[in-house]
């Protein structure tokens, strides 16, 4: 217990250093945050334009799709905010900085996590929050306790899935040294294409996202529950099930660390 306590305290210390560091460049910080807001704002505008022309897609209305987009964006931004260190991990391997991490008497995951805390992502989260509010007011959902719980579970599970993807992306760097461009499909791509409920992409894709990379568990199924189309009592817990995805990711990471050969000087 003491060890976990220490690790958590260390992590928060890392975060506070990161925030203080970012606050040294306040203008740049707020500009970047505003930029983050703007980038996802154009994605929203694009969706708005499409729904001017079409009233619904695969049975989902504009406000329902917005709800889906907002939750996905929030999950992604949360994961990116905390796991940015993994996102930039290829640099750490290439410069040999990871050697320094390994010789310290602390868990290497905590150290990589603490190497970067991207607070600027709150710009994107703000955008997501605004869309979420709009989606809620327009879609006329009857809220009750299980549904609120579902949203919280969605955020938890979704952050965990993206977190796991970032870890896999980083672990691949042990073997390739470079970040693999193709992995972007699973992270940035999921953010882009996760705007729409995944059944839009057809039944095979739904199967893939249920059992291989569990996007559907954090997006499609709980959304159905919130919208009142499915009422089975186990639906709110599906997003939590997606947290299991962290297990193979962490195993792969351990495997990668064991195979790490130092590079750089």
């Amino acid at each position, binding site marked *: 217990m003491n060890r976990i306590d220490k690790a958590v305290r260390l992590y928060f210390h890392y975060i506070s250093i990161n925030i203080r560091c970012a606050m040294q460049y306040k203008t740049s910080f707020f500009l970047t945050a505003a930029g983050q807001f703007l980038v996802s*704002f154009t994605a929203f505008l694009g969706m708005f334009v499409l729904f001017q022309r079409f009233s619904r897609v695969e049975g989902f209305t504009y406000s329902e799709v917005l709800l889906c987009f907002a939750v996905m964006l929030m999950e992604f931004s949360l994961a990116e905010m905390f796991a940015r260190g993994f996102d930039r991990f290829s640099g750490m391997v290439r410069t040999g900085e990871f050697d320094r991490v390994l010789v310290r008497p602390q868990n290497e995951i905590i150290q990589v996590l603490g190497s970067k805390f991207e607070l600027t992502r709150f710009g994107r989260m703000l955008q997501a929050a605004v869309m979420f509010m709009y989606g809620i007011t327009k879609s006329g959902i009857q809220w009750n306790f299980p549904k609120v719980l579902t949203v919280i579970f969605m955020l938890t599970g979704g952050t965990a899935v993206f977190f796991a993807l970032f870890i896999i992306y980083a672990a691949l760097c042990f073997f390739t040294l470079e970040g*693999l461009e193709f992995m972007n499909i699973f992270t940035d791509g999921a953010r882009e294409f996760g705007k729409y409920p995944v059944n839009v992409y057809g039944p095979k894709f739904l199967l893939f996202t249920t059992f291989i990379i569990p996007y559907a568990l954090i997006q499609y199924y709980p959304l159905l529950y919130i919208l009142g189309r499915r009422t089975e009592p186990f639906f709110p817990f599906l997003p939590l099930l997606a947290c299991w995805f962290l297990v193979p990711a962490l195993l792969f990471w351990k495997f990668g660390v064991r195979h790490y050969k130092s590079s750089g000087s």
Partner: protein
Amino acid sequence: MKKYLSFFRLRFAMGLQYRAAAFGGIATQFTWGAMEIMIFRAFYRSDASAFPMSFSATASYLWLQQAFLAFFATWMMDGDIFDSIVNGDVAYELCRPVSIYNMWFSKGLSTRLSRAVLRCFPILTVAALLPQPYGLNAPASPMHFVLFLLTLILGLLMTVSLCVLICILAFFTISPMGLQMVFTSMTDFFAGALIPLPFFPENVQRVMELLPFAAMQNVPLRIYGGSMSCYEMQKAVFLQIFWLTAITFTGKMLCRLAAKRITVQGG
């Protein structure tokens, strides 16, 4: 002229070296294009009558967009240039007997060309073999194809010109981050990278087509599918030439101004 040609050649040869990266890029872009098409297919199934162009023309648009991504993606800017402005290395470039505008222009052009040369053919081939209406169609007519090639080149020049202009603006703002972010998200939206311009409401579309952003990918990709009338095509090509001249001229003027009042950073 000769020196810029050799800048061009050097960069081009360098770009061709990254074959493994290109392979990864091809796979990524192919998946990306397929997903985009799935989204549009879902919309098409929901309401086919609201589609502004035929579905197969949309698919062709999206495949060409992925194949020639390197021509039009404004986020693929040369980070070295921004770095050199921020850390002051640009002073060395300014000492050389070359115009930095032309140098950056030829470097940008060759980077984009080499990337596209490596990536476009596999994507185009596979996309052409896909079953209709999801694959890449043949061009509407030989005339359309010739016009497509011409406007493709004009669009590429336009992209490079705009990107160099942004680089030069970084002389005035010092920190290029915000500038770059605003610029790339604006162009993605206004150029039809996010959603093809015909999908916008008609009056909005009419205004957007006049903007310089529409002179990039919008023109060639739509000409290819044959969804533009003869008059529209003439107007589009004219606008491309106009904007290319205007943006290049502005860039050159600003470059001269920046060189006069430059403060070199770093030490």
